[in-house]
């Protein structure tokens, strides 16, 4: 085979397959982790029947969803009803093309030249990520509307309103990180934290708080899980979905949680860097490969997600809108001004 074919088609394809396989496996076990963690928080045992200590539960769940009957309401808008799960899962997968998990690696000396383990690094990485994940809202609102079910319609509208409301402060929170790093490339942002000898959560603590709040709201999770408020809306926008179509919504939700966790790790906690990258006496920590630092940071964020679900009651919808528009938006705007002023004074 000639060189460009290998470089532009084969290597990316191999990476895509590995990324997707690992992602889907992690997502499957994330559901298991969530059920177990919630169970222990509520002094229950959680799933423990399928396989040793319940470890085969996610596989059984996946198989069950695959063979379940697929119900389509008779009065639904059939084409849009089928399109909606696709519209939500495609962006949830696509954002993984720009998320860098680790720096260039030789895979423990297997390769002659170091290659980047992530798919690609584009100079508008962060913009691409925000833009693509913003498309997910179409799946939610179209799914809710096309079901022709009152619960779905309410859930879809609420969810769409919530997602667009929290996207604004999220964008502002991200701007303050771009100000510090001077780039939209996610790799460059991590390198900037290495060069500054400082993880950006220290100067960007407010941005981190705002970003994480918005991230929880964007993924429709507790305490902002209004769209799926079981006690009032049954299952929100995906009430009428069953079988594999429901599974796609489910996959997308967990994949998006992982995206939020990854972005928090990359923007605020130095991505794949070990703690205090400039302190030589901590060099023994380098024994842990960079990827595992990244994965560990993401795991902590995901645990906090589950902790939220185990502890916080749900907000009312008017409270949710109040927080988004009257608190987070002005706060994030003020944060941009403060960070800009700080960068101006420090960098001259």
């Amino acid at each position, binding site marked *: 085979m000639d060189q460009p074919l290998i470089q532009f*088609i084969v290597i*990316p*394809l191999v990476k*895509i397959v590995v990324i997707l396989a690992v992602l889907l496996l992690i997502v499957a076990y994330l559901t298991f982790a969530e059920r177990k963690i919630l169970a222990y928080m509520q002094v229950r045992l959680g799933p423990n029947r399928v396989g040793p200590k319940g470890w085969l539960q996610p596989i059984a769940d996946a198989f069950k969803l695959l*063979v*379940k*009957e*697929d*119900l389509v*309401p*008779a009065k639904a808008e059939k084409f849009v009803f089928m399109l909606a*799960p*696709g519209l939500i*899962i*495609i962006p949830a*997968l696509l954002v*993984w093309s720009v998320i860098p998990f680790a720096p260039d690696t030789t895979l423990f000396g297997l390769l002659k030249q170091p290659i980047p383990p992530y*798919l*690609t*690094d*584009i*100079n508008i990485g962060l*913009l*691409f990520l925000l833009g693509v994940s913003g498309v997910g809202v179409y799946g939610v609102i179209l799914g809710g509307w096309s079901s*022709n*079910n*009152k619960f*779905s*319609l*309410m859930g879809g*509208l609420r969810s769409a*309103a919530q997602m*667009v409301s929290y*996207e*604004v402060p999220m964008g*502002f929170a991200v*701007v303050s990180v*771009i*100000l510090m790093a*001077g*780039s*939209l490339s996610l790799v460059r942002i991590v390198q900037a934290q290495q060069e500054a000898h400082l993880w950006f959560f220290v100067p960007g603590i407010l941005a981190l708080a705002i970003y994480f709040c918005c991230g929880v709201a964007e993924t429709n999770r507790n305490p902002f899980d209004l769209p799926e408020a079981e006690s009032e809306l*049954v299952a929100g926008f995906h*009430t*009428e979905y069953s079988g*594999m179509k429901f599974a*796609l919504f489910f996959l997308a939700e967990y994949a998006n949680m992982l995206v939020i966790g990854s972005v928090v790790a990359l923007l605020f906690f130095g991505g794949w860097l070990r703690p205090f990258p400039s302190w030589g006496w901590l060099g023994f920590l380098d024994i842990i490969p960079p990827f595992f630092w990244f994965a560990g940071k993401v795991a902590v964020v995901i645990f906090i997600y589950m902790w939220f679900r185990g502890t916080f009651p749900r907000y009312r919808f008017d409270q949710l809108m*109040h927080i988004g*528009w009257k608190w987070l*938006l*002005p706060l994030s*705007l003020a944060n*941009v*001004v403060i960070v*800009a*002023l700080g*960068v*101006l004074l420090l*960098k*001259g």
Partner: protein
Amino acid sequence: MTNYIPIVIFTLVAVSFPIITLLIAKVIRAGSPDPVKAEPYECGVAAETTAFDTRFSIRYYLIAVLFVVFDVETIFLFPWAVMFDRLALFGFIEMMVFLAILLAGYVYAWRRGALEWA
């Protein structure tokens, strides 16, 4: 631009993912269709109207309009933030003027009750 080639490939793979999984499910899933199953879920009571007949709050529309205004404005902040090193004080002052205009609009929307939800 070669950095974007993998993204194009990933897009194709991501689009084919739901199609393939739904096709697999179509082949192996169970199915015993029944007109009762195809009715909208509504707590067991026969539905008088469909969701397409129901009206919903105009607030949702208002939120969407506000979102467009503020989100377009974040897009303006992105290139400014990237070039902030070079724009320095001039860029800072210019952006403050821009944000002040936006803030005026925000205060107006707040005073007119666009952000209230009741």
